[in-house]
């Protein structure tokens, strides 16, 4: 550990944050130095976002202390933190699409001329100056919703810069930027550094971190596992600290011989609005009884690939085969009939109808199975529901209960049960363990194993290394919409997967491309 010095503007001491039962951050220490880029790195769910939200005053720590300029401080909310000079650029953009760029930048602190109202001319002039510095090529009067996502990101950064913050938190700022925009951002960061601003920088792109960072803090499972000067470390060291040696406890692979091909995609493409591809010629196959894990970071194109397979994106091209036969159906209902089923990543928005009962959610996609003529047979439906509840051990006293009353894990089981009731041949699971606790995770994984053993082809996407290593028979790595690696489980190693998941994302390769 580096000795304390007076460059430190903000210190987190022994911060612990507990969310309803799960510990997100445990006894984490973190120092933010002025005039430097302080890097935070870790896998998804390692606690980076939580730590960052605590610095920005969005969340308050359960225990531990925040010290600002040598004084202990307690940010009551984000506005309070902002008053103390902390600005944050979230990965998910927080812009008003229906307002102009200038209005967005000055949202909540509009420049006014007394009673004459908002001084739009002044706002647009100031915004124009800021954007010119960022070389964003954006008109201050343009509507935000008309901008490309990369430009929106620059607007968000301009907004943060305009606050004259002492501490600027950037959460994956480059994830949506093009290579040239990244260069501009790095110049701005250098400029801010020179003016003594402390920058907290979060990114998955390891090479980028090595290039831009000054100090690095690595998080794993909510604990700080490494703190060094960037000058003293390399990518391999970061990966080691991120992954650790001990693997989490997952159910062991049941050995069974995979059968014939259940699913194959050929050259599936999804063009991006701003050019290039969100899904870039993805060809994958999975056999009956096989689990194919797709490892990749957020925005690697995994969910988009699933969307293409389920015909949810009208502009997607490429071919999909189920059991060797070309799938020609152009809508979700047709694809489900052909034996494809998707467990979406966002349970609340796409998986469940939270107003309805557990039973209604379970049978929603397969009502035709219970029909006698046009009549839904209550008896058949109840039988199917209780079978589903039993098979997946969904913990619910009465299936007539509203599904929103269930815990995350049990809700996930309901979504899986709904998909299984359509008798799929191929199950696509997008982040099946997201937002559920450890116990439920293990159960979901056991279920996946069992289903594979019963002859289902399963493709699941995850950004958790342990998960993909423990569950998959084969592993595909996606990055920037492309499959960058495809290996047998036995040949896979964690460092190789991490390296493949960063391919095409690093600044160097982007600049070359």
């Amino acid at each position, binding site marked *: 550990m580096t000795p304390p010095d007076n460059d430190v503007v903000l210190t987190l001491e022994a911060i612990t944050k507990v969310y309803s039962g799960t510990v997100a951050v445990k006894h984490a220490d973190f120092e933010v130095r002025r005039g430097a880029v302080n890097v935070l790195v870790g896998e998804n769910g390692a606690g980076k976002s939580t730590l960052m939200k605590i610095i920005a005053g969005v969340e308050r720590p359960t225990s531990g202390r925040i010290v600002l300029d040598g004084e202990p401080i307690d940010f009551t909310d984000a506005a309070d933190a902002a008053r103390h000079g902390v600005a944050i650029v979230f990965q998910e953009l927080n812009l008003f699409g229906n307002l102009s760029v200038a209005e967005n930048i000055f949202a909540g602190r509009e420049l006014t001329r007394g009673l004459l109202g908002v001084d739009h001319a002044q706002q647009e002039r100031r915004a124009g100056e800021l954007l010119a510095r960022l070389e964003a090529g954006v008109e201050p009067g343009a509507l935000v919703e008309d901008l490309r996502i990369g430009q929106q990101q620059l607007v968000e950064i301009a907004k943060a810069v305009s606050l004259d913050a002492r501490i600027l938190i950037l959460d994956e700022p480059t994830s949506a930027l093009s290579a040239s925009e990244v260069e501009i951002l790095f110049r701005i960061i250098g400029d801010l550094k020179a003016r003594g601003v402390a920058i907290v920088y979060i990114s998955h792109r390891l090479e980028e971190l090595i290039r831009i960072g000054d100090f690095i803090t690595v998080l794993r499972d909510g604990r700080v596992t490494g703190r060094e000067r960037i000058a003293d470390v390399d990518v391999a060291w970061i990966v080691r600290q991120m992954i650790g040696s001990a693997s989490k406890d997952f159910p062991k692979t049941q050995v069974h011989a995979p059968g014939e091909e259940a699913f194959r995609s050929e050259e599936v493409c999804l063009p991006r609005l701003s050019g290039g591809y969100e899904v870039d010629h993805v060809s994958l196959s999975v056999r009956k009884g096989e689990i194919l894990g797709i490892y990749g970071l957020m925005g690697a194109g995994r969910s988009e690939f699933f969307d293409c397979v389920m015909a949810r994106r009208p502009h997607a091209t490429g071919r999909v085969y189920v059991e060797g036969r070309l799938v020609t159906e152009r809508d979700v209902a047709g694809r489900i009939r052909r034996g494809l089923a998707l467990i979406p990543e966002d349970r609340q*928005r796409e998986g469940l109808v939270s107003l309805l009962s557990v039973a209604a959610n379970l049978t929603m996609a397969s009502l035709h199975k219970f029909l006698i003529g046009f009549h839904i047979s209550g008896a058949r439906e109840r039988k199917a529901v209780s079978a589903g509840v039993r098979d997946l051990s969904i913990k619910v006293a009465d299936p007539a209960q509203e599904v929103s*009353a269930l815990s995350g894990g049990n809700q996930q089981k309901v979504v899986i049960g*709904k998909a299984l009731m359509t008798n799929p041949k191929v199950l696509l699971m997008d982040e099946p363990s997201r937002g559920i606790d450890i116990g439920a995770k293990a159960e979901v994984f056991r279920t996946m194993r069992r289903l594979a053993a019963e002859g289902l082809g399963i493709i699941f996407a995850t950004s958790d290394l342990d998960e993909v290593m423990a569950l998959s028979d084969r592993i595909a790595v996606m990055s920037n919409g492309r499959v960058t690696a495809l290996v047998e489980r036995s040949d896979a190693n964690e460092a190789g997967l991490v390296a493949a998941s960063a391919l095409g994302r690093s600044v160097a390769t982007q600049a070359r491309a």
Partner: protein
Amino acid sequence: MTTAQPAMRRGAPGSGSLALNLMKLRTFIALFAVLAFFSITAPNFLSAANLILMSKHVALNAFLAMGMTFVIVTGGIDLSVGSIVGLCAMTAGGLILNGLDLHIGYTVYFNIFEIIGVTLGVGLLIGALNGFLITRLNVAPFIATLGTLYIARGFALLSSDGATFPNLVGKPEFGSTGYGYLGAGRLLGLPVVIWLLIAVALAAAYFARFTPLGRQVFAVGGNERAAALSGIRVTRVKMFVYMFSGFCAAIVGLVVSSELMASHPATGESFELNAIAAAVLGGTSMSGGRGTIGGTIVGAFVIGILSDGLVMMGVSSFWQMVIKGLVIIFAVVVDQAQRRLQQRVALRQMVRD
């Protein structure tokens, strides 16, 4: 309001708490409250003749409210139903009185069953137009049905230049007599309208609970994205609800003109608001996903009995409007309170588990 629960929801255990149960039954309680109140204050209120008369009044609104319930459950709204009532009344009246002039020297006269069929078809057609605008052209339901409200009313007025089609007795030589049976006829001592209402209500409640399309209406309203991802054809579901709403409005158009034996182009003005009020009073959530046919029928009866009872008490019609408004607002406030209470109970249960 248990007739058409979207799924089996027989008394979830532990959802107890007396207050919650009272709130869940609030529409019934309101119904009994108005019945009790008026039977004391208004003479002859409980006489069979009066009850039947009131039911006939209520039936008109109840038909519209059922169609409206399905529309609102999908998260939409149908403002055009009042105008469809008017247009359908004029369609039926015009066909009985003048037939269909083909403008080539011939006029086609239909028999009474064909006329009823054509009129129902007009209702379905405008419903389909609503559905098309909303699903294919992405027009917001409020705007789309506001547009068809004016269009349908305009055509109703155009059909007679604003005049009434009087005296719809029909012509025996074309088999178009007997129109009045629908509005004034009786079957086993009850008006035909009441039987019709019972039949449509039972069919709608059955549909909501025991047919795939009915279930899908609730899924689409609860979470359109999840429904679509479950293979539900959202477009088809929405087309259906607007067409059913148009169909119900056509029935009302037939009934009204049959009762009066005349068609006036202004028939049904502002009926859509009463229908929305009945649905909301019956527990239909304006944000979609929640609502029952049974609840809506009870809601329609509460509103109908309230206004008829106040008339019998001699309350001024101006005060009636104020009271109706207060009842609707009160119903929604209680609805919100129930949601909150229900959530608290559910959370408590989760903690216990």
